[in-house]
């Protein structure tokens, strides 16, 4: 089984340092990992653990200080703008705050048209483009005909995040990096969005990396979980191993601090 799995994204000695001298902070500290194709991975950490820095490095939005990232087994080279654009056809992201993820001056159509253009569909006839956009919107339960000429900020937070998924639907990347995609929206919209993401993953067979502080979410969706503290992975494995039977004290504490509903939530172990 293990031999069959193809490497999708991996890293060796990945390090990111901000500042120098007194203000020097190591955000990501010598991290190694291998993510396989089709997996759902969760990187769990509290605020300040370096998980967002890691995700930006994986996306190629910031440069790594040291170490190497391998994409499909090849060393990633995104030094030129052209290579970057090529890389971004394969890796896409959904950000935490839907309200700040959209350019407030662009209409919804232009957000989706950009995706079609990126997939090389810039020269398609107009009807074909509209057909594609309509399909993407209906996938996420939005009505395209009601959205044309609207701006993203006219939608609710959940709808905006769904539009983000429609974007991914059009782009069909190999990897999706979801950076706290549900932390800004409420519980019942969260279920909708997770459902859609998982269905989309099945449909286009992409690898999904969740960056989250929500242990419940990590347990619910992922095939493998990485717990991050101070820029390092302290524990990793399947959700059953890591979350139900944690070995490291940090993981134990973290999981102990999450409110439960079936088991007794022990308040006495605080502080």
């Amino acid at each position, binding site marked *: 089984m293990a031999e069959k799995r193809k490497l999708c994204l991996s890293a060796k000695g990945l390090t990111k340092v901000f500042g120098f001298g007194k203000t020097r902070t190591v955000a990501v500290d010598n991290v190694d990992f291998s993510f396989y194709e089709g997996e759902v991975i969760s990187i769990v950490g509290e605020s300040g653990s370096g998980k967002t820095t890691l995700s*930006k490095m994986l*996306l190629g*939005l910031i440069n790594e200080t040291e170490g190497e990232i391998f994409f499909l087994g090849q060393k990633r080279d995104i030094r030129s*703008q052209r290579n*970057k*654009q090529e890389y*971004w*056809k394969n890796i*896409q*992201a959904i*950000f*935490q*705050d839907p309200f*700040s*993820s*959209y*350019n*407030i*001056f*662009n209409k919804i159509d232009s957000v989706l048209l*950009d*995706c079609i*253009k*990126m997939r090389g569909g810039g020269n398609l006839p107009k009807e074909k483009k509209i057909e594609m956009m309509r399909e993407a919107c209906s996938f996420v339960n939005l009505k395209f005909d009601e959205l044309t000429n609207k701006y993203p900020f006219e939608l609710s937070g959940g709808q905006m995040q769904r539009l983000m998924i429609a974007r991914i639907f059009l782009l069909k990347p190999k990897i999706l990096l979801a950076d706290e995609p549900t932390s800004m929206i409420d519980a019942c919209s969260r279920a909708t969005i997770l459902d859609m993401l998982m269905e989309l993953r099945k449909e286009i067979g992409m690898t999904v990396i969740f960056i989250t502080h929500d242990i419940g979410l990590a347990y619910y969706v992922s095939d493998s979980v990485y717990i991050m503290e101070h820029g390092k992975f302290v524990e990793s494995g399947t959700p059953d191993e890591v979350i139900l039977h944690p070995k490291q004290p940090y993981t134990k504490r973290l999981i102990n601090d999450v409110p439960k509903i079936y088991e007794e939530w022990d308040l006495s172990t605080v502080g």
Partner: protein
Amino acid sequence: MIHTLQQIFHSGKFKLGFAIFTSLLAFIFIYPIFIPEAPLAILGQGTFFPPGIYVNVYDSLDTSKYIINQEGAAKRRIANKLSEDDRVAIKEYLVAAGVDESRIDITNTDELLQQWKATFDPKRSIKGFTNAKRNYYIRLNTALQSLYSTGPAIIAVNDPETNTLLESKKVTVTEYVNVNEVPTVRIFPLGTDNFGRDMLTELVAATKTSLQIGFIAGLIATLIGLTLGLLAGYIGGFVDDIINFISNLFIVIPPFVLLVLISFSIGQEQRGASTVAAVIGFTSWVWTARAVRSQVISLRNRDHVNLSKLSGHSIPHIILTDILPYIASYVIMAMILQISSGILAEASLSILGLGPKTTEVPTLGLMMNWAMIYQAQLQGNWWAYFPVLAVIALIAFSMNLMNTGLDQVFNPSLRD
């Protein structure tokens, strides 16, 4: 877009500022249609004619006369003819002749003249008065007596053959002409300046030029500041360091000193209005650049910019569509301030005599400069400088009001 405009016009401050500014603009453009006169045409011989209606004396002689018996007309005429110096001299004589000083009121012409009549005696010599002074009082007395005469004045023409004066017309004290019937009347609503030019026409032209200078200066400053700020903020690194170095240089040297030095080195002949505008623009971009840079730095790490990158957009595309629109409101506000400070900078330069060339067009600063050189402020010729000041103040006030109004709209924490 329409929504934003609506919001902008909801702000009382913006509305007031906008109203003042547009009425100024409207006046500037409408006035020349009705009075298409060259703004620098020298009309009056002499300096600083006070505001008022000027009636041609020669033409009014030929205009039909109306007899009007006005009570008090004679009194007013006398009061008008008796100059301030004469009144003081009369008082001095009266006091010397032993009249109680507290009973003399030099503003009350009637009483003063009665006291004079009762006291003055040409033969009497008063201690301390020189001969010349005594003769002056005798002359004054004769003049005062002629004031009471009600006989007509005679207009005479010179007969070239006999070289004698021939009576042609008589003008009595009760004759009037209708101003509307006099063919040549000149109104100077704001008087004339030191060269005898119509102040209002000049002021309108000057406001126009000053606004043009301010606009060009503001545009140049904003363009330079915006470009450098965008480059420094978005690209960062080495480019940022260089731009920061340049703008630090400009900050260390006060811009006004720079402005004075550059204007001086250009020389009087080369300094047209547009040159001055460009110089002002080139020296005042620093703060715009700084502000834009800091805004861009905070914007470039936002998610929508990251998303735009992930969508494969090029750097120019990102700057134009994901950064620029977000700071547009800010830049417009900065530009309004730049325009108004450009106008003030021009005024300051011109007062120092470093303004645009003086022969082509007037500017508000030049008008101030002329008024100052010809000492209008010392002679009490308020019309030569006060309207100019008021216009400068109005422009700056209205622009700042608009700026504050915009700020309230774009920065919700300032809304009332």
